[in-house]
């Protein structure tokens, strides 16, 4: 179990003289699923004209902000305290199902809307959505699908794929696309997560893109990985960048079909102003759990 103080700063600089800037921010981690959100606050400067919070289709907590000009710097500062109790997925405690069996289960849910384990409608919709292609997750090539050894249990398959990706793909600071990352052996964290989704969906599994944070001393905490659905086992969060299932060093910010759905800050300025540059910075500081929150 670990508790972190997470500070996520997103700053936009530029001479904006008039008009309004509209922002859609995903800067508050999800509550539940092996993590507990104690408190979260979001400061926006200059003062916004309008702030409201809603949950998107996937249940992520979105803050909508309108900021009036003029400004030279628009800054969003999110602070949250999260206790993570999750342990890495343990194959010994999970259903042993060959991935082809999982594909069959997903196919049945897609055609009929009914699962074997009494999945509710929200769960069914999430599984169906995770099985669909999306803009940043292309269908994999037939060659890529040969990376999936027939008959392998899903848990072992994911562990094996993540292990291969973490060692075989060199990390680049900017994304090149999931398919190129596989072909050329170079890709960003985002590419790896998209690649994992791409292989899973290409095989007929259901997969999510997960944006979040990862604690590693001295390193920016921004991170992303994938989650794949296992009947009776839920969503297995697998990090292809480190080659392992996630544990209490990870904090889930939000999930969606791909990185576009869970971009921390999206914005449009209604203005006649000039160009704007953006920088993001994330720090995770281990702290002791707030009183009364243990367990």
């Amino acid at each position, binding site marked *: 179990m670990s508790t972190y103080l997470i500070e996520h700063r997103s700053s*936009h600089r530029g001479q904006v003289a*008039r*008009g*309004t*800037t*509209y*922002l*859609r921010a995903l800067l508050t981690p999800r509550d539940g699923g092996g993590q507990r959100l104690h408190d979260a606050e979001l400061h926006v400067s200059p003062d916004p*004209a*309008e702030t*409201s919070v*809603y*949950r*998107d*289709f*996937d249940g992520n907590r979105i803050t*909508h902000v*309108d900021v009036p000009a003029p400004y030279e710097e628009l800054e969003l500062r999110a602070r949250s305290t999260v206790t993570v109790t999750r342990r890495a997925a343990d194959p010994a405690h999970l259903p042993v199902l060959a991935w082809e069996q999982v594909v069959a289960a997903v196919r049945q849910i*897609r*055609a*009929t*809307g*009914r699962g074997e384990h009494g999945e509710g*409608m929200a769960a*069914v*919709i999430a599984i*169906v*959505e995770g099985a*669909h*292609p999306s803009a940043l997750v292309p*269908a994999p090539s037939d060659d890529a699908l040969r990376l999936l050894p027939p008959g392998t249990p899903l848990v072992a398959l994911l562990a094996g794929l993540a292990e291969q990706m973490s060692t075989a793909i060199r990390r680049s*600071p*900017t*994304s090149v696309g999931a398919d190129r990352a596989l072909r050329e052996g170079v890709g*960003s*964290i*985002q590419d790896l997560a998209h690649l994992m989704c791409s292989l899973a969906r290409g095989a007929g599994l259901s997969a999510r893109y997960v*944006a979040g944070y990862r604690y590693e001393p001295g390193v*920016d905490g*921004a*991170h*992303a990985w994938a989650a794949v659905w296992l009947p009776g086992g839920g969503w297995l969060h697998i990090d292809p960048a480190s080659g392992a299932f996630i544990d209490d060093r990870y904090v889930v910010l939000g999930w969606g079909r791909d*990185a576009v759905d869970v*971009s*921390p*800050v*999206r*914005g*449009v*300025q*209604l*203005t*006649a102003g000039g160009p*704007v*540059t*953006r*920088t*993001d910075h*994330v720090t995770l500081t281990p702290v002791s759990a707030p009183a009364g929150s243990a367990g």
Partner: protein
Amino acid sequence: MSSLLDRYAAHGPGHDEMLQAAGATRTAWQRVTGHAGIDAPGQLARYRRAVDAARRSRGLAGPDAPPWPLDPLPVVIGAPEWDALAAAAAQRLELLDALLADLYGPRRLLGPGSLPPEIVIGSPGFLREADGITQPGHHRLAVAGIDVARNADGSWVALTDRTDAVRGLGHAMENRRIIAEVLAPSYRAVRVRRLGPFFHELHTSLQEAGAPHRPALLTAGPGSPAAFDDAALAGLLGLPLVQDEDLEVQDNQLWLASVRERTRVGVLLRGVPARDCDPLELRPGRGVPGLVHAARRGGVQVANSLGSAVLENPALLTYLPRLCREVRGEELQLTSAATYWCGDRAMCSHVIANIGRLVIKSARPGHGGIKGWELSIDQRAELSARIAAQPWAWSGQEPVRASTTPTTDGTTLTAAPTVLRIFGAASQTGFHLMPGGLGRVLPDDGGATALPREGTAKDVWVVAPGPTEDTPPDVALPARSVLPPRTAANLLQLGWHLEHAARTLRIQQAADGAAPGSLPARLASTEELGTLTEDARQILTHARAARSELPAEIWPVVFRLEQAIAAATVPTAATLPALAELLAHRLPHNGRRAAVAAGGELARAEHTLLAMSLATEQGLAQLLTLLDAPDTPTAGLPGADHPAATLLWSETSPVSVRRHLAGLRAHLATVSGDQALPLLDDVDDLLEELAARHEVGLSNLAEELTPGRWRLAELRRSLLSHVPLRAAGLPEEEWPT
């Protein structure tokens, strides 16, 4: 029966609207064709030409020319039969509306036994961003269309539901106006239900839904394929026609910019696909940032509601009968053409096995369908592979052998399969159907798909039995008062170029035969004057952009102007004054007329200064003559009796720059309230100073006038070019890196 009709009947179309009509409807067909006198030699060709001419003179020309011809002969449907179809269609629309509320709300209908979730989740028309948005009014669909055809067994079937941005309402009314004019004797001979009340009800319904705030119609703008349809609909509904840049979200409310004061929009009827409505949450590049969130917070209603295109997924047709029983506890009355969803394994096998005789449709909104029988063996194999790769995205539909209607090719009548797009508008009491619609006949290929790009349009007449009765005139809708700055700029431009062209014409006439070096000759040859063709082009552009504000009478004149440009001839002297006259007298007083007049005054002031700067001292007196004011008294003016002083600052001469500027000021005040015009004050000061000086008219007049001309040009730029705030996406930094 006439010989043409005899031949048509003998040719033997087995399944024909006219030949199978009975009773009163048969009588109506006979009256329509009889009064049209189609047997007279060349009559059908004459009708076709008359239709084309009527379309052109109504502005359906140039970039706004529809891609399909309009057939002179309408589709005639008897009232009892129509009423049954309308009731069935209304039930279908109620069902679709209820479905929409569920899909973006509780989603109780998704799941085993009702609707497979993948049909919704996998539908490109499903907008996750619209999830949870509620609509305070009674319906989510304000107005929707259904493409229907009559099957071989005589029953009507729905081919496609049109629920996103509805297309064709404006064209349906245009077609009616044109055919009612071309076939006037036929139109009078039968009792045809009028379309006007439908638009009036839709207007009332939108007005009530957004009260106390006003409704507006969002269009993609003059360059878009739907520009004419949108402008016509805005005119019919009496709504301001607005573009992205006219709108702004503030405090989660939607505001429409106006030259006077901005107005709040209660209902935004969208003429654009939902995906193009908000660059923040939907597709970047188009739309009003913050609109989706404003709808989410209840600050504005978007109609049809965002994400309504999900209902256009043909896969839904498979499940509608079941959903109708579940939602409404009754049978679906207007059934769909038999449709198989490939996401279901058994149905997928059926579709692939029968691919050569089915219409294959994608879940993508607006996909018209692929006719399996037109594909080669290789193409079928390729399509089968695409279906197998993404089965949920495809459906197969049984082709419908649509009933035929007599349609002219100019010389004779052919039996052409006919599809109707019928429209329903929501009201408190349910959906009301437009009595008529957009008929389309297709090349006879054995099966109707959705309305294709090819084919011929037809008017649809719903006829009541009994004698013709006088129908009350359409109720006039309240005049629009909101004038978006973009539209004001268009009207100013119209006025400016009309006046500029008129002056140019006059100078060219005067220059004809004038001595070289004389003022008219020098003016006619200066490049600063610009060309008539350029003026004419600008007039066309701005007239189209402001279409919904302009009286219908201008379009025949605009068309003549367009022909003159196309033929590279100089627009005739008659065209421009006719247009100017129409705009000066037929535009409403609510700021529109003043905007055109202001443009004219500005052009006059600029033009006179240009002429003066080219004139010699003798030329100045000539200029007064040229400007049609030879009798202007010049005595007793400040700055002596010099013509330059008269031209600049006479209070009495109708052609003085001073009078033009005063006129400009007064008209702008009418347009915009008390907009401060520091630039105009500057020009005033400069010219007054110049006029008061005794040496005015010396050889360096051109130089002295330069600052005034320069400022006036600057004023023109600031008035005529409306510069809106533009939406620009903030940089998308990759995260995490």
